[in-house]
């Protein structure tokens, strides 16, 4: 892992929700700082986990984290999706009076906070602007939690489709809006679609939608440029993906599928980290002698359970052979809830084979 951290400028940590992505990302960042780098760890975290783990106060841009053996510097930042999106809109808009209008549009408020794809978009936006600032030697991105790891890579495309598919075009005739918006549209095909949609949703909704699309039209150029820049950054030789997964059949299957997708997308998957793969007691290889039959019984059951998992892991690692470096991390004795937990995990990552 040392050479990966040394040779990377950007590490993108991906994985489905609940696998410990945030703590692993923090640990990788800490390792970088211990190697003398100026490191930023970025997270979009609705549950604010990194905040608790790293002790960051609300509303701060990037906070310096102090810890043992840091010879470089470690900064952590929690991305505020709403704020990042608003900032993007303000930068992308040429007309200030339109900015106000869009920021007040009810659908925009929904889009910038809850729409699927908007968190992924803001994460990449923040990653790029931090990279562009030139302040850091290494940026570790903890991606938003998704049901499936692959959703992260697909989300920006979904947002971009808004423009490439020409949806915005439907709503672009300002003259028509002044009278009856839909009647003003000349293309009969789209007119019919909109009429049908209006019958289903009501004119109130359609007005908001039209207003929304007219206002975001001006982002198109900026959004496309940004998408291009971000893509170049993600496929650059100094950017690596790290896939973090938990240890069960379904997750391992997903990891295999995801690693293929990453490759197909032209990205570099450098490491696969299986978090909480086994409890620490299983390593010691001790033979338990307990007087309590209950404890003995539980011990046998758990040993058997982890033995079977070991077998499925062997099959998995044969299939995954040479796709990426595979690391297995043990279940921690304590919950990782502060910097000392992150330090311990970083040590495990360094030692893991």
């Amino acid at each position: 892992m040392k050479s990966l951290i040394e040779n990377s400028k950007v590490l993108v940590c991906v994985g489905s929700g609940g696998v410990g992505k945030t703590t692993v990302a923090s640990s990788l960042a800490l390792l970088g700082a211990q190697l003398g780098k100026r490191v930023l760890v970025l997270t979009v975290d609705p549950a604010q986990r990194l905040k608790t783990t790293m002790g960051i106060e609300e509303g701060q841009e990037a906070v310096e984290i102090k810890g043992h053996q840091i010879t470089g510097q470690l900064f952590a930042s929690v991305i505020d999706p709403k704020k990042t999106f608003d900032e993007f809109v303000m930068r992308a808009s040429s007309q200030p009076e339109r900015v106000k209008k869009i920021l007040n549009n009810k659908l925009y408020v929904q889009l910038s906070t809850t729409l699927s794809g908007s968190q992924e978009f803001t994460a990449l936006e923040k990653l790029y602007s931090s990279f562009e600032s030139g302040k850091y030697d290494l940026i570790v991105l903890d991606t938003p939690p998704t049901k499936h790891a692959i959703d992260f890579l697909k989300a920006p495309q979904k947002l971009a489709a808004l423009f490439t598919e020409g949806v915005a075009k439907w709503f672009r005739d300002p003259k028509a809006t002044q009278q009856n918006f839909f009647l003003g549209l000349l293309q009969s095909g789209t007119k019919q679609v909109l009429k049908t949609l209006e019958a289903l949703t009501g004119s109130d909704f359609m007005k908001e939608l039209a207003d929304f699309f007219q206002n975001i039209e001006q982002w198109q150029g900026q959004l496309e440029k940004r998408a291009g820049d971000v893509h170049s950054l993600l496929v650059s030789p100094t950017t690596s993906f790290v896939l973090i997964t938990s240890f069960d059949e379904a997750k391992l299957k997903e990891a295999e599928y995801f690693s293929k997708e990453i490759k197909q997308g032209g990205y570099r998957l450098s490491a696969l980290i299986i978090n909480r793969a086994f409890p620490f007691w299983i390593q010691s290889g001790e033979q338990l002698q307990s007087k309590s039959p209950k404890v003995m019984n539980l011990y046998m059951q758990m040993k058997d359970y982890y033995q079977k998992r070991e077998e499925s892991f062997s099959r998995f690692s044969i299939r995954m052979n040479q796709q990426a470096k595979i690391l297995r991390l043990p279940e921690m004795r304590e919950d990782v809830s502060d910097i000392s937990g992150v330090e311990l995990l970083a040590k495990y990552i360094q030692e893991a084979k």
Partner: protein
Amino acid sequence: MIKSFQQEIIFVTGKGGVGKSAVAAGIALKRSKEGKKTLLVELGYQSFYTDYFAEQLKAPVAFSPVRVTDNLDVALWSGPECLREYAIYLLKSESIYKLFFENSVSKALINVAPALPELAITGKITSGPRHVGPPLRYDVIVVDAFATGHFLALLKAPQGMAEAIQFGPMGDQSRSIDKVLKDSNQCKYFIVSLPEELPTAESLELAEGIEKTLGAKPVIVMNKMLPVEVTPHEGASDFEKFLTNSQQRQNQALSLLGGRPLQKISFCFQNDSWKVVESISQEINL
């Protein structure tokens, strides 16, 4: 018309990795064994249960329910599919729908239009009690819902839309969906958690969010509880230390819950998914 038809809707959420889908399946299996016709619903585009129930299923999980076992079916609902079904129901013609919606422009719009997918999904889930849309002939619907933050966004969508859109069918539908979600006789909410500090703190945050949004009181399901009590002693083995540790962790997590409704599920040492689900179905109280 259907008279005195009381459908039970059970939402199961929780952060990733806590065993949310297994618990949802366990709840559904329990109801089905009680003789209730039960539908287990997963949300999104990719099925989890297709692999999970590979032994039981004859076909992959899809929008139309497929059979898992007696009285138990499973379905996969995505926003666009729910919207499509609703639109066809209203238009009363699939060909009109196809004409207007089966093109890339409409598809892109439906995919990104704010809150529409969320609204369509909650609309479909609550379609039984609202008598809107094609009938869902099940006594019980168990929804393996989105994880934490996304789930709250799903529940908030109807309310948010009802506030934003005062008039027209969209506003009316949103209000009626919101009403069902808030009806504690109709909808129940379970949050699956692990007996550890961070997952528990997150579950509590979510429980408060659900209470605030809907006024409902969700039940917290502590999953993967370790069963044996041990007393720390001299020369304890690593395994005994692990048990002592886990126990402290569990007790701490439980103490965070205060007086909230709680259910415990023991750690199931099975690698076979059906056995896990059966064991949960026997342990859970509804």
